């Protein structure tokens, strides 16, 4: 038996208690007597809640294992308090068939540190022309479909995908970025891009796609998820769609809750990601949106790139930053959600979206558990991910994952003085 | 601050230097005076005026900027360029370099280098108002207003009216090692 001792339990009621775990389940919450063979994890001062779920990670396997692989990405996820991650399909080859999806499932299960659920491509080869093997993917267990990295720009194709996926019961997730408006943009279009002489990627490129997609949801009734919302205008569109009762959800990435396009002034490609970092007004709107629930959840868009790939001029750099190991602390630092909302946005809502058995910790719950200390400060420097392209390097953040349990097994335990 | 040369003495020194230049060169034909900025330039002009009194005509006078020929550019703040103006081709002429103080000889070494950008002189001579000793190069002046033995801790301050508003030479104590 494992006893999580003395934490604030985010359960049916919110109180300081011990949590006992045995045979993969929560067996007791309250005052638990510790036997001689029990493993005890001190949780005083920490929140003990359901394991974190990340709807958006790039594990790079198959195809780009020098950046990350399923094993290293799983370790990073566990270190970040995650118990479930959704792997994006932009691998090489892309996850556009059941076979590749099953490979990712299997590699995740082999590693055994986090539940790895692949998402499937919407279009074959993510080429935006023909439908991917949606039935196959569904049969393999895929529930979320996306061409992430690119928008599904062709309205006709997206309509067909929505019709099909609605019928299956899946979710269409969109990387919203109108290719014509985005052009060869490298950063948010605004005062900073103008000054730096870089081609801008306007907020509108995101908003217009979401606006259009909402029309298609009205038509098809398909469940629709907006990936990594970055612009305040997009948030308004999402809010209206939700008010109209449409099946729309949205995620936000931790970096969009913290940084602005001013970070690009450092010329360091660690500030390069799509959608790009936007303005202070956008950051403020996203924080408010996460608090009020317009944004359902946080997803990291963990996008590892090795040092030599980012050690180039900004405009030549690949896009994306890692986020798994810093996400919980970063969100806690920039938004400061209360414990219940924190776990709702980081675990319960995204879990619900995937149809997982997640919710507040109660006796009988699957023992996917994250112990998070909201007051412990640290400065990221090194990572268990294969890559270190993090904008938080050298920045103090508050909040630390003290332990992660997956199905009752400890997958990560923070040792004071150890890195990450 | 002991004044070692007053305005009157300074005038006399200039006058004597001019006479010596004329004497050594058997007149002023073929001479060109090049002052080293900043204070060498007005001194050269004054010598030229005296030469005109003596000889009835004055030699061409110019300025020779040596700041880009110094050997210590890497170890000092960015130098200011005072600008050279060499009114004639110096090739085949006798160039008289004029400076206020002769010290280590580094300035003159730089000047000998700098003058080459303007041609190949037949001869180069050196006139200084003050020679304070402490040479670091095999350089000596042909015409000296006053020999002034000093210690390294002292500084020789030359004021000339055109630059400083009055004429005088003083010796001051300074920790800074300066001047050429």
């Amino acid at each position, binding site marked *: 038996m494992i006893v999580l001792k003395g934490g604030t339990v985010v359960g049916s009621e919110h109180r300081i208690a011990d949590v006992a775990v045995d045979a993969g389940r929560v067996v007791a919450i309250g005052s638990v007597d510790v036997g001689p063979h029990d493993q005890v994890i001190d949780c005083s001062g920490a929140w003990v809640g359901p394991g974190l779920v990340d709807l958006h990670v790039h594990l790079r396997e198959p195809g780009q294992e020098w950046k990350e692989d399923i094993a290293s990405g799983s370790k990073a996820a566990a270190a970040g308090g995650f118990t479930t991650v959704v792997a994006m399909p932009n691998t090489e080859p892309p996850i556009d068939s059941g076979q590749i999806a099953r490979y990712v499932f299997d590699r995740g299960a082999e590693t055994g540190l986090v539940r790895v659920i692949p998402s499937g491509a919407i279009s074959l080869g993510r080429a935006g022309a023909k439908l991917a093997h949606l039935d196959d993917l569904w049969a393999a267990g895929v529930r979320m479909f996306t061409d992430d990295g690119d928008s599904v720009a062709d309205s006709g194709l997206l309509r067909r995908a929505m019709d099909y996926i609605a019928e299956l019961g899946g979710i269409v997730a969109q990387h919203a970025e109108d290719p014509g408006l985005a052009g060869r943009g490298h950063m948010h279009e605004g005062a900073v891009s103008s*000054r730096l002489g*870089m081609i801008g990627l306007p907020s509108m490129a995101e908003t217009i796609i979401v606006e259009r997609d909402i029309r298609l949801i009205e038509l098809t009734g398909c469940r629709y998820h907006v990936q990594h919302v970055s612009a305040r205008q997009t948030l308004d569109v999402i809010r209206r769609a939700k008010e109209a009762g449409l099946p729309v959800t949205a995620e936000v990435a931790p970096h969009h809750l913290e940084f602005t396009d001013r970070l690009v002034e450092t010329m360091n490609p660690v500030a390069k990601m799509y959608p790009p970092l936007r303005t202070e007004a956008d950051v403020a709107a996203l924080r408010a949106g996460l608090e009020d629930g317009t944004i359902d959840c946080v997803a990291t868009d963990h996008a590892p790139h090795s040092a030599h790939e980012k*050690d180039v*001029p*900004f405009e030549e750099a690949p896009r994306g930053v890692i986020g798994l190991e810093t996400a919980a602390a970063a969100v806690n630092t920039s938004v400061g959600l209360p414990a219940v909302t924190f776990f709702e946005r980081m675990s319960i809502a995204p879990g619900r979206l995937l149809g997982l058995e997640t919710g507040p910790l109660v006796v009988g719950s699957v023992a996917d558990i994250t112990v998070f200390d909201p007051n412990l400060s640290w400065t990221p420097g090194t990572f268990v991910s294969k890559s270190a392209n993090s904008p938080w390097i050298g920045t103090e953040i508050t909040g630390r994952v003290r332990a992660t349990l997956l199905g009752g097994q400890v997958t990560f335990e923070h040792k004071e003085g150890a890195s990450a | 601050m002991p004044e070692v040369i007053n305005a009157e003495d300074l005038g006399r020194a200039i006058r004597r230097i001019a006479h010596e230049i004329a004497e050594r060169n058997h007149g002023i034909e073929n001479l060109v005076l090049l002052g080293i900025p900043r204070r060498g330039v007005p001194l050269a002009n004054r010598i030229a005026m005296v030469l005109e009194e003596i000889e009835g005509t004055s030699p061409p006078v110019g300025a020779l900027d040596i700041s880009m020929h110094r050997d210590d*550019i*890497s170890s000092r703040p960015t130098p200011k360029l005072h600008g*050279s103006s*060499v009114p004639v081709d110096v090739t085949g002429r006798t160039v008289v370099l004029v400076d206020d103080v002769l010290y280590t000889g580094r300035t003159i070494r730089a000047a000998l280098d700098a003058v080459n950008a303007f041609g190949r002189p037949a001869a180069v001579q050196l006139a200084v108002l003050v020679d304070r000793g402490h040479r670091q190069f095999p350089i000596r002046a042909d015409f000296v207003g006053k020999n002034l033995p000093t210690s390294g801790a002292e500084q020789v301050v030359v004021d000339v009216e055109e630059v400083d508003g009055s004429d005088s030479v003083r010796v001051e104590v300074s920790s800074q090692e300066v001047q050429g």
Partner: protein
Amino acid sequence: MSLLTIEGLPAAEITRLLDLADGFVEVLDRPVPKVPALQGRTIGMLFYEVSTRTRMSFERAAKALSADTMTFSPSGSSVSKGESLKDTALTVGSMGPDLFVVRHASTGAPWRVAEWTGLPVINAGDGAHQHPTQALLDCLTVRQHFGKVAGLRVAIVGDIRHSRVARSTAQAMATMGASVRFIAPRTLLPFDVDGWPVETTCDFDGAIDDLDVVYMLRIQQERGGGDVFPSIGEYVNRFGLTRRRADRLPEHTMVLHPGPMNRGVEIDPAVADGPRSLVTKQVANGVAVRMAVLLDQLSGSEKT
């Protein structure tokens, strides 16, 4: 340490560099236009973009100061073998240069070279961002002709959006007290000039009799400047410095261009070669300005 951008350089500092450059104009006019100031120093030149005048200007400046140069340009080099900018900078860096001069098509590349090598870097043009020595030579050219920069009415006309020259020169001239206007179709103006010390207009003809300096820019086809107006003919009609338009300029107004010029597009050949043109003066001043900047970078920086 490093000259990466003209942004934030105060007027006194610009003036100091211009004064120094003025001195070098005289040096370059000497029978032997060469001084030993930077003897024994080595300048590493990384030119990742095609450049004739800037590269030659820096080389000429370095040599006139007796510095040695090592010039790297991608064609026929390791770049075609896939070597990264970082590796090249570190490789050239270990051959012992005292300073880098960097030109690159990407914004910020010179910053990165400075970061990787720890050496001073002069930005010789990065993307559409900055070109500080161009800004200085433009100020020098204008100051020589008008005796001042302050109070002059300057129009920069053409592909502002993709121009590092516009960004740097406008900043430098505004810092020196000129009033600067950008004149271009909206698609060639920067998206947001909020906080810039410039005004913008799309009406060249309306501005024309109110100018002391007209600074013409070429269309930067390579950065996408060609796709944003209907045709060259229509562009020339509204924004070219045609002979007709040049005739309407006040008597004293002078014309600058950073080169290379597209004669017959942004500027009529007769204007480019005419009495108003300061273009060759700009090129000549480029050498003096780069001498000033090189000397300033390497003065007081004892070789280690």
